[in-house]
């Protein structure tokens, strides 16, 4: 029987238009803009200046604390400037502009496609290398991976969960990666297992990807301790806590980390990046990005260098179709609408979605009719209508008691609301405020 998580969840139309499109390598752009804050935690500090020559894979911004990562140059060429530029939100963020000249890589990087299976280094070294390679969670949250692998004192990881769920509609980057880089991902998983010193790993995959499930089941026979778990299609199964619940049946306590139930979750994309970093010495400089949408001429999956402008991707997929209402960075449920196509692809960009006008329209917001659908679909067992009101009226102490910080911002409540109420907008606002209050209390 297929497993899934116990509380809530929705099933939006899948629309995986690009699932049969092989990963293509996007041609090198002319310039890139690489932001220094592409991850959760402190922004990295730039270590190059205007006029410097850089190679592919060279560190251009150094991590500034433990919860932070290095940023590497994804192209070779000359640093044009280190400056602030508006990102998807319209607010300026610091980053490094590089004019591309040629494609010269740092020497240690192995650019061949040969599979390297033998693991030659031990756990702590793996973690160190992951940290140096600037690897973050590629599922979208971009939490530095090396931090996850070091459990807090007194806790021990028992199982590694690999997230191949890809529950967001439209997105297919993880799906393609599992089909095309199967063995690499499995070696990456073994590396992660060794780093964490666990002997069990489970790959969770939703049942709408039968080809990936079949292929991985067949391949993982030759790898010790790895098994595949097929899951019923349900959004947001790709959420860390939902995946843990679906696979192990355990529930992460409110405010706790997955490690509290002995689990660590990593994305398949992260496992692939780990493989490349350790077996090939290649830092995180490119990722798979799905470019899709109902009006898009050629929905595709591209291997894109970090820092490439969104406009290049859109061009490669056939340009912006007429009557496009919204362009979203990420999936339709959790992604963010972007204001211009100058926004660069970062480590967390899993897809670019061009929504048609009629899809993008939120609809008129009317009064709450107390149907309680939001409560029914909330995968964290919260009461979104109440949290929205508390955010709106700015009653933050009560919102904290109602566990507003447990919200994973999956957007199931806003999706399901028949009155089109912007539930998540207010909850996210409240979360920000409550988070600030909690931090100030700690000080």
């Amino acid at each position, binding site marked *: 029987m297929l497993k899934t998580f116990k509380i809530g969840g929705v099933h939006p139309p899948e629309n995986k238009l690009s699932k049969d499109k092989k990963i293509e390598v996007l041609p090198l752009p002319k310039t890139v803009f690489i932001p220094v804050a592409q991850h959760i935690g402190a922004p990295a500090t730039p270590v190059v200046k205007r006029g410097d020559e850089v190679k592919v894979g060279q560190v251009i911004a150094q991590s500034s604390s433990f919860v932070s990562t290095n940023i590497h140059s994804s192209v070779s060429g000359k640093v044009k400037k280190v400056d602030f530029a508006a990102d998807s939100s319209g607010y*300026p963020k610091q980053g490094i502009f590089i004019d591309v000249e040629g494609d010269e890589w740092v020497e240690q990087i192995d650019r061949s496609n040969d599979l390297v299976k033998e693991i030659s280094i031990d756990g702590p070294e793996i973690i160190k290398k992951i940290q140096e390679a600037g690897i973050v969670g590629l599922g979208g949250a971009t939490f530095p991976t090396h931090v996850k692998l070091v459990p807090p004192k007194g806790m021990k990881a028992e199982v590694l969960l690999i997230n191949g769920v890809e529950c967001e509609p439209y997105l297919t980057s993880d799906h393609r990666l599992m089909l095309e880089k199967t063995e690499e991902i499995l070696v990456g998983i073994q590396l992660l297992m060794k780093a964490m010193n666990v002997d069990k790993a489970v790959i969770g995959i939703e049942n709408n990807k039968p080809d990936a499930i079949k292929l991985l089941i067949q391949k993982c026979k030759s790898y010790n301790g790895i098994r595949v778990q097929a899951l019923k299609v349900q959004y947001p199964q790709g959420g860390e806590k939902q995946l843990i619940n679906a696979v192990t049946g355990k529930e992460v306590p409110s405010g706790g980390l997955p490690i509290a139930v002995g689990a660590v979750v990593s994305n398949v994309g992260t496992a692939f990046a780990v493989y490349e970093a350790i077996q090939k010495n290649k830092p995180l400089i490119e990722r798979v990005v799905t470019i899709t949408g109902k009006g898009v001429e050629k929905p595709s999956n591209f291997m894109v260098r970090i820092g490439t402008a969104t406009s290049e991707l859109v061009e490669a997929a056939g340009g912006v179709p007429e009557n496009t209402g919204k362009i979203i960075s990420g999936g339709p449920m959790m992604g*963010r609408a972007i204001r211009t196509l100058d926004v660069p692809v970062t480590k967390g960009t899993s897809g670019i979605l061009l929504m048609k006008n009629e899809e993008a*329209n939120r609809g008129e917001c009317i009064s709450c009719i107390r149907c309680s659908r939001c409560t029914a679909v909330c995968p964290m067992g919260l009461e979104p209508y109440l949290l929205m009101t508390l955010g709106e009226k700015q009653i933050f102490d009560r919102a904290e008691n109602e566990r507003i910080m447990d919200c994973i911002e999956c957007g199931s409540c806003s999706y399901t609301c028949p009155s089109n109420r912007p539930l998540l907008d207010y909850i996210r606002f409240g979360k920000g405020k409550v988070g600030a209050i909690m931090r100030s209390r700690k000080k």
Partner: protein
Amino acid sequence: MSITVVYTIVTLAVIGAVAAVILYFVAQKFKVHEDPRIDEVDEALPGANCGGCGFAGCRAFAEACVKASNLSDLNCPVGGNDTMNSVASLLGLEAVKKDPRVAYIRCNGTCDNRPKTSSFDGATTCAIASSVYSGESDCQFGCLGYGDCVDACDFDAIDLRSELGVPQIIDDKCVACGACVDACPKSLIELRKKMPKNRKVVVSCRNQDKGGVARKACSVACIGCGKCMKECPFDAITVENNLAFIDSDKCKLCRKCVAVCPTNAIIEENFPPRKVKPEVKTEIEPAK
């Protein structure tokens, strides 16, 4: 029958008497001594409970006044100098004269001046919109126009005119309580010195981008050229981060800066029409 009535009355009377005695002693024991002057000061205050003084309400402000040894740090912006004089005379203290203030929204990014480049369909409050993105125009500093300041104002002194896209302060109603200043996530609102006849000369812009970027986003943006600073005979103008600022305490309303501003970012309000150059007037009159 009648005896029951007597018993009832007697019992109740005894209980009442005992309770009265207990209550008397308890009241004596836990008596809270309150300065009678607090009530008097409270009476003299406007009673708007707006919090403009920085205290939780008029009563809290009255308590602070009674405790204070001088009134230099305390001011009721709603009542102004008259109220503070009467408070001072009640307490036997010296009143400190303060200039009355009025709020001003430093953005003139109306629909004509600042073209929209995107549209937002989320929750329509400034606080949420500003946390998600920079605004519908290319100016990340300007007014979002969802009216958090209008909601914050207890005195109906802010008028959100949707045809303009930017709210306007109604000077005669504004009491300078500062509620809108706190409500604006873009920090556009400033409490400026109230001039005679509500006259104003003010840089109606907060854009700190470089000149070219600012100008592209909005036709009346301050580009930080510094012409006004050189022109000002009273040193009232400073330019910092590509943005000019006129200190209302130093400004003498000479309007020389208005004449030199290349982008009409400096606005003059409530002046009689200029006599010397009547053709300039049409250009620099604020959009209404």
